[in-house]
């Protein structure tokens, strides 16, 4: 697959640790057994680092969402700042545009990235009303691959049944970054890729059509943001 995003965490990485460990064990015998405990804490630390990152990011988001003094624009800016820092917007955006990324002109790529970031932020800011009084806590955390960690959280809102969200955290340029959100087994980036591609396809492969649709969506979200006030 020519997608840079998937290529970065391709399958072989999952089996990499065992592949390295096995010959080691046979070659050095007991020596590798001593090395094993060293392996585990390193991975556990990875895990807790991702959890800490999600905890910190989540607390920042909740603080920004629940700040009663700030007006809408201020809150949106605070949320935007947290998202820009915490989410691998570039990587996720490219992944979602998928095969159309290479067919887009540089100008379209640039426009798309701007619209994508705006959509991400507006999607949250249009729900400020719904997320009033939101609380979240860490659930169990599980590691998937070498650099990918799924961090489970539980989101609680007043008068609504709590629900569980998984955050996929990867190392991007040495920093932990959210690369996907998974709700009930459904990956947001996969669903959104399907959605965007469908829009382009139904408009005879026009990327411009998607950009226009995104623009319309952002306008709608902005209108909703005002209503929820």
């Amino acid at each position: 697959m020519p997608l840079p995003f998937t290529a970065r965490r391709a399958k072989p990485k999952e089996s990499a640790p065992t592949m390295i460990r096995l010959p080691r064990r046979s070659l050095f015998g007991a020596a590798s057994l001593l090395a094993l405990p060293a392996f585990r804490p390193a991975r556990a630390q990875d895990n807790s680092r991702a959890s800490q990152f999600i905890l910190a990011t989540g607390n920042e988001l909740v603080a920004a969402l629940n700040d009663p003094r700030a007006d809408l624009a201020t809150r949106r800016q605070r949320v935007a700042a947290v998202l820009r820092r915490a989410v691998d917007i570039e990587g996720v955006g490219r992944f979602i545009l998928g095969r159309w990324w290479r067919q887009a002109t540089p100008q379209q790529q640039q426009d798309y990235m701007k619209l994508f970031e705006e959509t991400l932020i507006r999607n949250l800011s249009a729900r400020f009303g719904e997320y009033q009084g939101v609380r979240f806590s860490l659930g169990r955390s599980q590691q998937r691959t070498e650099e990918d960690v799924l961090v489970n959280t539980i989101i609680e809102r007043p008068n609504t049944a709590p629900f569980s969200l998984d955050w996929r955290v990867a190392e991007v340029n040495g920093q932990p970054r959210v690369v996907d959100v998974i709700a009930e087994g459904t990956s947001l980036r996969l669903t959104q890729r399907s959605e965007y591609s469908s829009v382009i396809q139904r408009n005879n492969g026009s990327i411009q059509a998607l950009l226009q649709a995104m623009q319309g969506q952002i306008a709608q979200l902005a209108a909703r943001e005002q209503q929820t006030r």
Partner: protein
Amino acid sequence: MRLMPPNTSLLALALGIALLAGCATRPDPADPDAVAEFEQNNDPAEPFNRAMYDVHQGIDRVVLRPVASAYRDVVPQPVRTGIRNVLGNLRTPVILANDMLQGEPRRAGDTLGRFVINTTLGVAGIFDVASSLFGVRGHAEDYGQTLARWGVGEGPYLFIPVLGPSNPRDLTGFGLGIAGDPLTWVGQGVAVDVLTGVRGGMTVVDTRESLLDVLDDVQRSSLDPYATLRSAYRQRRAAEIRNSGEAAPAAAGSTGFGIGTGAFPER
């Protein structure tokens, strides 16, 4: 098509129409990315499915959503929870059968234990005491999942009005769920027919109510709700077949919208 039970003429009909009706144009074989996507979407009957989706949206707008919305407004939350618990408890025979068919004795034990406790202490299933007092949470299971575990492929994606997203395998599972449910065959007469009808109707209303927020959100925020639902359904179904993640609601059916909604957190 594999494993078609004799009593699912509806399924055969739906499939027949799907095959006759316009199939999606295959992408240019010279474009490997387009071909890969076409295969990944698994929706060769897309034009037909989109037409069915529009039919469903019409029904939903006029009947399903207003009824579910009124149900939420009129019936207080504790009563709705009780109704959901009863519906879930009534699904025990199907869940238990599928736990066993999948060779999951522990889950089968959970299902059986829950049924005994909830039917007695939980007053005919109204209160989920097995979960609240004994910590044994419910899970859903259906024939579609069992067929998947047995290696039956899902087949092409299908959208069925009222039932929602599906495929030949899950639709077969849905039929087997009805045919293989002892409650379908118990007794006869007007009273039984009425109760069966009430149960079926309540399942639809309860399921739609549980999806009010999610589906409203999809309609409002997706640039192509059809594509979003297709992707979400297939991903969630795969997760359910793996028995990974959160428990599906007790009342979930084996196809369509009623699958795995409203996850409850594990504490």
